[in-house]
């Protein structure tokens, strides 16, 4: 029998699997809603990345790195500006607690977050129009005083302005900036960058910086009461002096005072042979500045042993490269002079000993004294502040007393070094932000509440298989020989755009969905839905997901987690089946409507073909 003219009906041409609607189709999932296979449900739950948690200002680092990775620099800049008003400053001077916390350090090397931040900060300063000003609310009529135009005060003013408050900053010095200007040398933070960042804040409108106004002399404590609230961030700018014989000789000075004179652009001089007494970052900055002012030989004399130095490792390495000498484990016993001028110093071996209370105190080894020649001695052994103007009950041992909300009493808040002792600029920026938010709450008569507890994402909960090892991109540097004679030459240079994007691409997005699409791809049951490739736009089709948890296992960032199914009790999140097989009564016997239609159509076509064939045959016969 010939098969010519035999017509195969449509439904028989389909492969077998095609007869039942596939689970990829809506109809297939309704036919067999397998959500009830599930013990655990995959849930998108963003956690706190360790960098964000470590940052005192709470910068959303993961978020802006993701923006930079996708070349969305403006979005990245605006993300930083939500928390930190001066990324070009912190991008240069921050001691980056974020990088210390970065999970990538357990993988290969931490991300160069500070360098990316600096890239975004410079990007923001280069913008023709300020993107922040148009978004600010109108002034609400309340007026807050901020004492001190350092990082803490400026941050507080900025955040208060974002919340609609008018702010007056009272600054004792002739220029705003506080320790950023008076404590950080220009080769770390160029003056024009600091000026630009401060100008950016002033330009927002509603913030007035009143310089040469010292609280205690020009403004009294009572005057502050005329404002609706006040934030005290006076910092600590008086350097401590070691009380040894000869410390009143000419040629002995405070390291901090030296840095401040240089920072405010006043003429300073360092000798040819300089001794810097101290083992912290101020000592390092002082020594390196002295070198740039033409000193032939600069030696850092510290009680701390070489591995105990409190100098940032980066700075220590740079100081070494520049030729700063170190005399660790050494104490300054007395300073020698001739005719009232320093000629040398007597040093001795010493170390830091701990007494029975755990307090550290220096211990000089007897009979180890020796003499060195020098013409300048600078002390960088800590700093204090004069608090005579403040009422006695709010200060204690040279610091202001503030609670966990930064509140001193009533509407008075405080932050920065004057509360916590010498700390990082970014600590002060964070205190300013916290104070601004809490001042806002107090003025709205809202309750002060502690921050919500956060779940910090550990490295162990990431899926490291997805992150190929890539070395950290180090920022370019000015060569030591070039930079060591120039007070203005920046030591660390900026990333190029390509470098910033490549470095941001190393971010593992710990615990936060970054729209990698992996769950969407690996789900064997097409139960992961999304409307945009972005965090918050993925969802699980709960009526069909069988709970195989492949998505959870394969989530690179660890943002997906499994939650027991019975923790959820919404209506219809799982379709209750009538029998083990059928979603509704009688589903076994019935064919689904689309399939039934295919059959009906096939039969109709078959019948039609037969009728035509019969008619043709009849016609032929007649013909």
């Amino acid at each position, binding site marked *: 029998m010939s098969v010519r003219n035999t017509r195969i009906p449509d439904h028989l041409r389909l492969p077998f699997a095609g007869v039942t609607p596939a689970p990829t189709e809506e109809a297939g999932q309704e036919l067999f809603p397998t*959500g*009830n296979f599930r013990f655990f449900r995959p849930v998108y739950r963003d956690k706190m990345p360790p960098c964000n948690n470590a940052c005192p200002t709470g910068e959303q680092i993961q978020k802006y790195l993701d923006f930079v990775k996708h070349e969305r620099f403006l979005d990245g800049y605006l993300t930083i500006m939500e928390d930190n008003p001066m990324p070009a400053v912190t991008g240069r001077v921050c001691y980056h607690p974020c990088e210390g916390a970065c999970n990538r350090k357990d993988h290969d090397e931490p991300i160069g977050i500070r360098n990316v931040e600096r890239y975004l900060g410079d990007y923001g300063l280069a913008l023709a129009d300020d993107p922040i000003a148009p978004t600010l609310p109108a002034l609400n009529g309340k007026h807050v005083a901020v004492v001190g135009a350092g990082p803490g005060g400026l941050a507080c003013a900025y955040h208060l302005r974002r919340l609609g408050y008018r702010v007056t900053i009272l600054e004792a010095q002739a220029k705003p900036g506080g320790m950023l200007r008076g404590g950080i040398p220009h080769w770390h933070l160029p003056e024009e960058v600091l000026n630009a960042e401060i100008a950016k804040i002033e330009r927002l409108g509603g913030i007035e910086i009143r310089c040469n106004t010292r609280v205690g002399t020009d403004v009294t404590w009572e005057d502050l009461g005329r404002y609706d609230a006040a934030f005290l961030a006076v910092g600590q700018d008086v350097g401590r002096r070691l009380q040894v014989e000869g410390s009143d000789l000419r040629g002995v000075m405070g390291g901090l005072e030296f840095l401040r004179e240089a920072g405010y652009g006043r003429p300073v001089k360092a000798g040819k042979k300089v001794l810097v007494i101290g083992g912290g970052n101020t000592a390092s900055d002082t020594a390196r500045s002295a070198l740039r002012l033409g000193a032939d030989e600069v030696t850092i004399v510290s009680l701390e042993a070489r591995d105990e130095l409190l100098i940032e490792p980066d700075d220590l390495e740079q100081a070494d490269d520049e030729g700063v000498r170190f005399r660790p484990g050494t104490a300054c016993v007395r300073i020698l002079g001739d005719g009232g001028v320093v000629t040398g110093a007597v040093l001795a071996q010493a170390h830091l000993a701990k007494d029975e209370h755990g307090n550290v105190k220096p211990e000089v080894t007897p009979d180890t004294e020796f003499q060195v020649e020098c013409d300048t001695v600078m002390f960088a052994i800590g700093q204090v502040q004069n608090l005579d103007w403040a009422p006695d009950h709010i200060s204690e041992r040279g610091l202001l007393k503030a609670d966990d909300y930064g509140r001193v009493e009533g509407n008075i808040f405080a932050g920065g070094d004057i509360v916590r002792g010498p700390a990082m600029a970014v600590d002060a920026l964070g205190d300013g932000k916290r104070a601004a938010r809490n001042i806002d709450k107090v003025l709205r008569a809202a309750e002060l509440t502690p921050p919500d507890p956060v779940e910090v994402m550990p490295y162990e909960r990431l899926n490291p298989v997805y992150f190929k090892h890539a070395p950290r991109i180090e920022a370019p540097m000015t060569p030591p020989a070039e930079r060591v004679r120039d007070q203005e030459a920046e030591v660390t240079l900026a990333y190029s755009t390509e470098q910033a994007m490549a470095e941001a691409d190393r971010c593992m997005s710990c615990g936060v969905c970054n729209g990698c699409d992996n769950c969407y791809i690996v789900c064997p049951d097409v139960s992961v839905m999304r409307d945009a490739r972005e965090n918050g736009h993925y969802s699980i089709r709960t009526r069909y997901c069988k709970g195989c948890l492949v998505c959870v296992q394969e989530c690179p960032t660890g943002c997906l987690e499994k939650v027991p199914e*019975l923790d959820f009790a919404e209506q219809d999140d799982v379709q209750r089946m009538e029998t083990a097989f059928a979603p509704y009564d009688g589903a076994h016997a019935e064919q689904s409507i689309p399939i039934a239609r295919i059959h009906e159509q096939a039969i109709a076509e078959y019948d039609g073909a037969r009728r035509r064939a019969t008619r043709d045959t009849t016609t032929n016969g007649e013909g």
Partner: protein
Amino acid sequence: MYHEITVWTRGIIMDKEARDVVNCMATAASNAGLYSHYISDYVDDPDRTNCLIRKYARFGDQPIVDHFVYENPRPDWVVLVEETLIKGVNFFRGTPEGQGVLVVNSTRDPEYMLRFLPESMRAKLSKLVVVDAVALAEQVGRSPWMFVRDLGQLAYDRMSTEGASERSEVGIGIAAPLIGALTAATGVLPLEAVEQTVYDKAAFRRGAEQHVVLDYAERRATTVAPT
């Protein structure tokens, strides 16, 4: 007197738990001089891992006439071997109104479990029994999926011929406390008679003593029906 027991469980990985429950109950009823049936699953394609499957037993003091009905059309005792089944299936299909005894293996509170039952199913409920069978059973293996067994035992389990001859002991693991809770909460078969058929008698006793009963029939009687 006539009771139908349907045990809902998950294919392959929890097959034996359910099988043991119906096996022991039917055997105990038979030993007690009652007529009884025990039926494995012939309709739900029980070879699919994790899918919903059923095991059945029925017993009574009159001869059972429906020899060739391989499902329980009117189950009045229902056991859920795993807690999430409570939101996945209408296990009270065919259950007479107000007569359903539901035994769930769960660590949660019966009041919490009750929220998963729609009104139509609550109408059939008489008792909600929650027993933490996993804690009461002897822990073997570490799998979160297969309550108290490891893969090697699961392989032996697959060699069993659906209860006709069991490779491992009948009434071990979480089945024992589940049987204990079911027997104690229903109170129809004597505990001693059922205990005879269970291998892990200590776990059976623990299940019989340590379970939480929510008497829904009583609550229904005391709550004034809205008019």
